[in-house]
């Protein structure tokens, strides 16, 4: 399992998500990995440590005493000019919290696989997205993966995206705990040289070890400068989507698997659509296929780049849909529904109120007409929170979601905006 796959011909293998991610890390061959084990991420670090022990990577592997230290050491290494990585899950991720913001603020292109797992309390080791969703405002790029193949592909692309000179932000690649991390799938691997060629040599934007250009990192920054620096960080988020597209396209040329900001599955003429991320998207696709056979115009939008949120492209993709259900594998505990639901609704506001598009040319009267027309057309959006703590989501549950969407279209009645799917009443 953990043996080297450094042969010349291996390309298509059976692997778990964790194994695929560890393999991608071996091929990326980072300068430094500082990590602490936590279920269900443990295997990534354990397998990678065998690569280190066997001399298959040149990585300096730092065994730390906590995830806070893991991220701290990774930040230190990155600030020193190293290509640095770590990996975590759940409580470990939560323990990294303050350092996450520092990694982003220091503009260090750290890449971190995160195996999504529920947060305590109550304690639970299984999948939901509560851990990384909480860090959606941390300044990190967040990319979600549907399966082991995507986790592998996303990790390699994340290096290029994070390190892009237009971006320089840390990136986390998320995959569902156990469902993807421990599920065995067939994964198509790249050759080592292909990965190395694709990611290229790392040229840090700055380095503490560059004695010819001495710098101070992390200096005190008061009311007279802090705002400017944070404004600059916000600006770095803007080009991310474009870089993600460029890298995804280039990756497609290399592998035949190109990637966008999201996957629009049978969405073009869809009347009802589900928005989901992670492994649930795969289950939803099966339901979409089923419904299409019955003549239902069902579609799916699977979010890949969640942060920064590619709202314009998502709005465009969903604007023709009549009823949308957003599936959230975490709750915001705010009475507002799940995080993805809140984002989708906020994005749709512009569409429904004429802020999106060519309305600038209308006179006041025309603008109002256009607004009214759009108000009528705006998709109905409902939210389902599901799968917390690893609760299964199956075809039947998703069928019910589409049935409700069809009923909304037929009756015009939306009903409860936020529901919980698969919980005992």
């Amino acid at each position: 399992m953990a043996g080297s796959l450094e042969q010349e011909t291996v390309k298509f293998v059976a692997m778990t998500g964790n194994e695929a991610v560890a393999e991608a890390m071996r091929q990326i061959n980072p300068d430094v990995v500082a990590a602490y084990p936590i279920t269900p991420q443990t295997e990534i670090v354990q397998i990678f440590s065998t690569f280190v022990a066997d001399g298959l990577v040149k990585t300096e592997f730092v065994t730390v005493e906590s995830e806070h230290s893991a991220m701290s050491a990774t930040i230190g290494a990155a600030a020193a000019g190293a290509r640095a990585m770590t990996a975590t899950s759940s409580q470990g991720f939560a323990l990294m919290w303050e350092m996450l913001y520092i990694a982003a603020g220091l503009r260090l292109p750290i890449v971190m696989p995160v195996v999504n797992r529920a947060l305590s309390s109550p304690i639970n080791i299984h999948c939901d997205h509560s851990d990384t969703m909480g860090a959606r405002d941390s300044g990190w790029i967040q990319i979600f993966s549907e399966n082991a193949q995507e986790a592998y592909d996303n990790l390699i692309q994340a290096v290029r995206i994070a390190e892009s000179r237009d971006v320089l932000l840390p990136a986390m690649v998320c995959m569902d705990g156990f469902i993807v991390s421990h599920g065995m799938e067939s994964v198509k691997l790249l050759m080592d040289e292909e990965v190395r060629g694709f990611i290229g040599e790392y040229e840090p934007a700055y380095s503490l070890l560059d004695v010819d250009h001495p710098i101070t990192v992390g200096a005190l920054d008061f009311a007279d400068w802090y705002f400017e620096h944070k404004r600059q960080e916000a600006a770095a988020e803007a080009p991310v989507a474009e870089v993600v597209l460029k890298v995804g396209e280039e990756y497609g040329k290399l592998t035949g698997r190109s990637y966008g900001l999201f996957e629009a599955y049978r969405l073009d003429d869809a009347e009802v659509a589900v928005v989901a991320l992670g492994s649930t998207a795969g289950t939803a696709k099966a339901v979409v296929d089923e419904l299409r056979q019955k003549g239902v115009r069902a579609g799916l939008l699977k979010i890949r780049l969640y942060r920064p949120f590619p709202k314009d492209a998502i709005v465009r993709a969903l604007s023709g849909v009549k009823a949308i259900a957003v599936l959230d594998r975490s709750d915001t505990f705010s009475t507002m529904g799940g995080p993805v639901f809140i984002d989708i609704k906020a994005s749709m506001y512009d569409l429904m109120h004429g802020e999106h598009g060519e309305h600038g040319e209308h006179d006041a009267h025309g603008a109002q007409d256009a607004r009214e027309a759009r108000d009528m057309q705006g998709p109905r959006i409902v939210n389902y929170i599901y799968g917390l703590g690893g609760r299964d989501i199956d075809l039947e549950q998703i069928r019910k979601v589409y049935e409700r969407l069809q009923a909304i279209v037929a009756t015009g009645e939306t009903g409860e905006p936020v529901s919980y799917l698969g919980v005992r009443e």
Partner: protein
Amino acid sequence: MNTGEKDWDKKGWKDVPIAGLITEPGTARRYKTGEWRTHRPVWDPEKCINCLLCWIYCPDSAIQVKDGKVVGIDLEHCKGCGICAHECPSKVRAINMVLESEAEAEDGEKVKEETMREGEEGEKERKEERKGEGGNEK
């Protein structure tokens, strides 16, 4: 804290180095941390025996020494912690901590003259630096 109007002519977010980096060494002396002070050390040259304990202990390198002798206190960087006054030998007590507001109101100019006495070259150098600065380099 420098949040007044004088900040508006500093560099904007598009022009500052990435990540809040300070890309030039030795710029801390341009940052006037002395504005935080609530208590001001007032140094009495008549009492001072030049043991330099204050100079050793000052966490902000604000005790100004020339040729082995204390010549003043850099009030632009002294944060008023009082360590110098504490370390000054109890039989000497050449430094007294005075409320900043009182020091400003009562001694005003006199305190300034005494404590900010600097070598003329040092002062000139500072002025030059400030001129060429064009905003904080951070």
